């Protein structure tokens, strides 16, 4: 099937190539590009090219529903010998795959990427080290696009690691600040746990595909995500279902690390130490969504077993609730949004686990826009008044009109108020899980948690909005005078606001909605566009009611400049402290690290210092002592040397004329 834009599918590799070139150019010449904002405009140019081509490819995919265009080359091939672990041999390929899934992601990554790049120009203007910033951000964008277009799990993993390392670089952009350096390390190490699990999962899949794949009609060439009418696990006899279940759990581990799902969620709130633009692009819209994308492609191309699905539902559903509770009390505007991101990612994971892969991806799509909007609006606030503390803000809607409206739209969308984007996708997630729970009773508790979270979501985001924007003036009068940001910052906020309004409605455009329908090629069919059964409408009504209730509660407690203070003797105080301390998870990890790991390290250090080094240094000292004594015979006096010669002669004579004749074994006796 070809459409008017299908010719572009083969050129998809140009999409990641443009930011890669920007990375190289800025990396080499960025320091001489003062007039181009130290490479900023080069990065914007690369992102613009990627966006235009990426969106055109996505539109081409919409016009040819369900087409799969795989362009790849053999990286290397190993011929099969008929025995061993790979009797059919295997080959590894690299290439681009344009399909409904990658089309959706292309739109998200390129559009948000371009807008964030543009926003950076003025937001980052006052910072130093800008060539580094733009080079790393371009490299991130390139890697993310390479990940999105990957046509096999190995290539996916390579780019997955690349985005991880870019995330590390950018979180630690202000590396002079200890908190930022430590947050970068934390993010890198925690996601690394997931990455190791992911890699183990890939090994299992790879081995299974390379052996069983060809016999089942899959391409002999290793394990590309080739077009096939069913996922690998569906409808085929599997020799070792336990192995596949384990592989699925390992993949879930990788996704949980990247998407900050419980229990690997600690790093994302701390990642807010990076610039806000980085939070918007990497830690809200794109990289953290890669985990969900991984689960989506795994469920579309490979499939999960029932046990895996339950595990995914459990982790997603629990994380939704877990993260949202911590957002309720936080004072930092960015951290509130970060917890919200973790929570919303939980919704996506939940949907994928319940079998509604494309619904999860749909929520990813809408969430990317309204969450990037929230971050950029928060960034504009931070840029203007140079604080992240919500309790110092206030009354900003008067001075920052566009920003306050942008944040409001993002908040309403997040709270799930119709007809904004978040309403449709969240409603579909809840509807889908409700449907799946009919046949899987174990899903009910997680459905309940996710449903409750709707109320909390609306509450915490409007608490933030009221604290920052309502009231008369900032609570801290020493803050700089707030001002509306320049056009490079206003434009992304306006565009994202528009997208946060229409992204949900887009699903009703048949061509666009078709992406989500065509991508899910196995039952149960996704509910996009939403179905309108009585239960479904009731569910939507209740969830909108919960959202509105959350907003009203926030207004009652925080509206019009009010500050709600919990009574010091209130029974809720311990809960508040528990939430502020992040359930003591971080303290627990620190304790474990400081006592258990550090203790072990000290033991190893002791062993190294005193046993290994002790042995080495002992020999060293022994020889040094011996040499010191021996060197005394080197007196320099000729007479002494003559005496040694005579003594040597005496020993020689003694040996040959007295000892040798006395010993039969030496020929004497």
């Amino acid at each position: 099937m070809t459409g008017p834009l299908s010719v572009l599918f083969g050129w998809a590799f140009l999409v990641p190539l443009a930011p890669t070139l920007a990375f190289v150019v800025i990396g080499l010449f960025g320091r001489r590009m003062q007039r181009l904002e130290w490479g900023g405009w080069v990065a914007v140019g690369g992102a613009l090219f990627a966006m235009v081509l990426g969106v055109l490819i996505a539109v081409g995919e919409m016009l040819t529903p369900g087409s799969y265009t795989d362009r790849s080359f053999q990286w290397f091939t190993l011929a099969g010998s008929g025995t061993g672990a790979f009797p059919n041999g295997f080959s590894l390929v690299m290439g681009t795959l344009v399909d409904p899934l990658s089309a959706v992601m292309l739109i998200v990554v390129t559009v948000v990427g371009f807008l964030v790049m543009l926003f950076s120009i003025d937001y980052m203007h006052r910072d130093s080290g800008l060539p580094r910033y733009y080079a790393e951000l371009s490299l991130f964008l390139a890697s993310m696009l390479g990940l999105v277009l990957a046509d096999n799990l190995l290539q996916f993993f390579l780019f997955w690691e690349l985005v991880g390392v870019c995330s590390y670089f950018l979180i630690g952009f202000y590396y002079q600040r200890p908190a930022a350096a430590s947050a970068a390390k934390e993010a890198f190490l925690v996601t690394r746990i997931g990455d190791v699990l992911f890699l183990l999962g890939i090994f299992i899949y790879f081995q299974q595909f390379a052996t069983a794949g060809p016999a089942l009609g899959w391409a002999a060439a290793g394990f590309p995500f080739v077009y096939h009418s069913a996922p690998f696990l569906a409808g085929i006899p599997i020799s070792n279902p336990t192995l596949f279940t384990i592989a699925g759990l390992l993949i879930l581990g990788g996704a949980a690390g990247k998407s900050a799902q419980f229990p690997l969620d600690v790093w994302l709130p701390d990642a807010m130490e990076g610039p806000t633009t980085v939070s918007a692009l990497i830690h809200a819209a794109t990289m953290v969504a890669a985990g969900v994308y991984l689960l989506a492609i795994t469920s579309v191309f490979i499939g999960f077993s029932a046990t895996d699905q339950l595990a995914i539902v459990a982790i997603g559903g629990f994380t939704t609730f877990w993260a949202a509770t911590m957002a309720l009390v936080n004072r930092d505007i960015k951290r509130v949004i970060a917890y919200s991101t973790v929570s919303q990612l939980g919704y996506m994971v939940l949907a994928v686990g319940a079998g509604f892969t494309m619904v999860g991806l749909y929520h990813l799509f809408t969430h990317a826009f309204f969450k990037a909007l929230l971050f950029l609006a928060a960034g504009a606030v931070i840029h203007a008044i140079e604080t992240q503390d919500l309790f110092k803000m206030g009354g900003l809607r008067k001075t920052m009109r566009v920003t306050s409206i942008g944040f409001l739209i993002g908040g309403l969308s997040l709270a799930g108020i119709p007809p904004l984007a978040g309403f449709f996708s969240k409603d579909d997630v809840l509807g889908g899980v409700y449907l799946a729970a009919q046949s899987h009773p174990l899903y009910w508790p997680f459905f309940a948690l996710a449903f409750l979270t709707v109320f909390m979501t609306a509450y915490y985001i409007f608490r933030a909005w009221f604290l920052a924007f309502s009231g008369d003036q900032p609570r801290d009068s020493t803050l700089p005078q707030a001002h509306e940001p320049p056009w490079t910052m206003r434009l992304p906020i306006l565009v994202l606001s528009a997208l946060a309004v229409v992204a949900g409605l887009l699903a009703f455009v048949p061509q666009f909605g078709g992406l989500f329908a065509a991508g899910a090629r196995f039952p149960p069919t996704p509910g996009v566009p939403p179905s309108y059964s009585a239960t479904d409408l009731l569910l939507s009504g209740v969830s909108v009611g919960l959202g509105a209730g959350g907003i009203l509660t926030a207004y009652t407690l925080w509206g019009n400049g009010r500050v709600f203070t919990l009574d010091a003797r209130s029974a809720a105080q311990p809960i508040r402290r528990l939430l502020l301390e992040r359930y003591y998870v971080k303290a627990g990890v620190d304790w474990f690290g400081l006592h258990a790991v550090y203790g072990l390290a000290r033991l190893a250090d002791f062993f190294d210092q005193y046993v290994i080094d002790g042995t080495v240094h002992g020999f060293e000292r022994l020889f040094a002592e011996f040499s010191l004594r021996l060197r005394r015979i080197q007196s320099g006096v000729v007479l002494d040397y003559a005496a040694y010669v005579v003594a040597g002669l005496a020993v020689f004579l003694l040996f040959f004329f007295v000892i040798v004749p006395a010993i039969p074994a030496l020929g004497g006796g």
Partner: protein
Amino acid sequence: MTDLPLAGFVAVSAVLLGIGLFGILTRRNFILLLIAIEVAMNSAILNFVVFGSYWNSISASSVEGQSVAVVLIGLAATEVAVGLAIVLALNRSRGSINVAEATTLRL
């Protein structure tokens, strides 16, 4: 050669070597040291001559032992020349020919 016993010559040679070694180990004056070395060396030369003569008396006529002795006398003269040159250099640089004081070879 007369019929003096071979052992007598060897004994003289051994005595000479003993005197020479004693001189080498005890003298500190470089010139006396050189003389002691000469004495020890002459014991070796005497051995060559004695055994050369002995060999000559029991079998073929040959002068190998005596020839080597002549070469060795030349060698001893060369050695003394080098030794005396060192004595002069030592005396010039340190003002003394006491070998126990010349310790710059020490590590």
